[in-house]
């Protein structure tokens, strides 16, 4: 094998390995969705798989493994602001008093046709 062919082979090896894991994770999350597991377990599996896929793509395909600290910081900054947005919004929704006689969150399906629409 020529040195160039060896170089090209080495170039493919790592990314193909990561791609194979990504495909296996997709198959695993699909299988979990079609299984008889509980909805909470399934949801946890789906989110865990997404998190693993995002990390694999970020670290290996997007080169964060070898990037400088500033680039890693820029990559994490988006997630950080996203986390703030989620935490603040869910703080709001989770802390709203249930104003319906059904004891359900405002505008939930359980209220339809049974409860007054609360003033928000």
């Amino acid at each position, binding site marked *: 094998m020529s040195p160039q062919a060896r170089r*090209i082979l080495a170039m493919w090896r790592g990314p193909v390995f990561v791609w194979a894991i990504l495909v296996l994770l997709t198959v695993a999350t699909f299988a979990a969705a079609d299984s008889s597991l509980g909805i909470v377990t399934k949801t946890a599996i789906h989110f865990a798989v997404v998190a693993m896929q995002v990390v694999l793509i970020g670290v290996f395909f997007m080169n964060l493994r070898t990037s400088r600290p500033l680039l890693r910081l820029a990559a994490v900054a988006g997630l950080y602001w996203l986390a703030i947005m989620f935490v603040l919004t869910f703080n709001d929704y989770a802390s709203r008093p249930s104003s319906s006689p059904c004891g359900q*969150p405002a505008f939930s399906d359980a209220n339809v046709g049974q409860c007054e629409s609360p003033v928000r």
Partner: protein
Amino acid sequence: MSDVALLREPWPNLERQRYAASFGIWTFLATELLFFGGLFLSYAVYRSLHPEAFRVASHETAIAYGTTNTLILLTSSLIMTIAERAAVEGLRRLTITCLLVTAALGTAFLVVKGFEYAEDISKGLLPGPDFPLRPASTQLFWGLYWIMTGVHAIHLTVGIGVVLVLTALISRATIPLQTPASEVISLYWHLVDVIWVTLYALLYLPGRK
């Protein structure tokens, strides 16, 4: 090609230029993440308020198309990674081939998505007065489905366009093979992939068995 040919104003050296290009695209990707983040947040809030409606609505998504597209896009990310590395190594033919395959896989994704949209429309899954699913809040899911997958498809179309432009410029030797644009476009492509794997879990998986 020499480093001088790659160097652009105002950068004092090529390393600094590459660093700035990477930082610029990562900053842009962070804003893109927040853009999609607003949609993810809307999804999360409405799903927490209407869990059963979202399960019923998600059951109607065409998971075969969704899974096929996930595999297509993951493969395109692999090929794009190889294209970027081949460009760094100075392997011209491999770079061009991989860029073309990446664009072809992106196009295949859009074709599959087209078939999926046609099936969704034939089932009447466009939110409106004659929406076939109950409860009415299933329309929230389908509204988000159309917006999120539509915006993603626009991003992918832009990605295909820039990959093809880069391919043309490299093959005509208008820009050097080791241009920082390769990494910039590659990172954008991977973000489109990251968004899709998230959409796959949110839209296609919750309503199964």
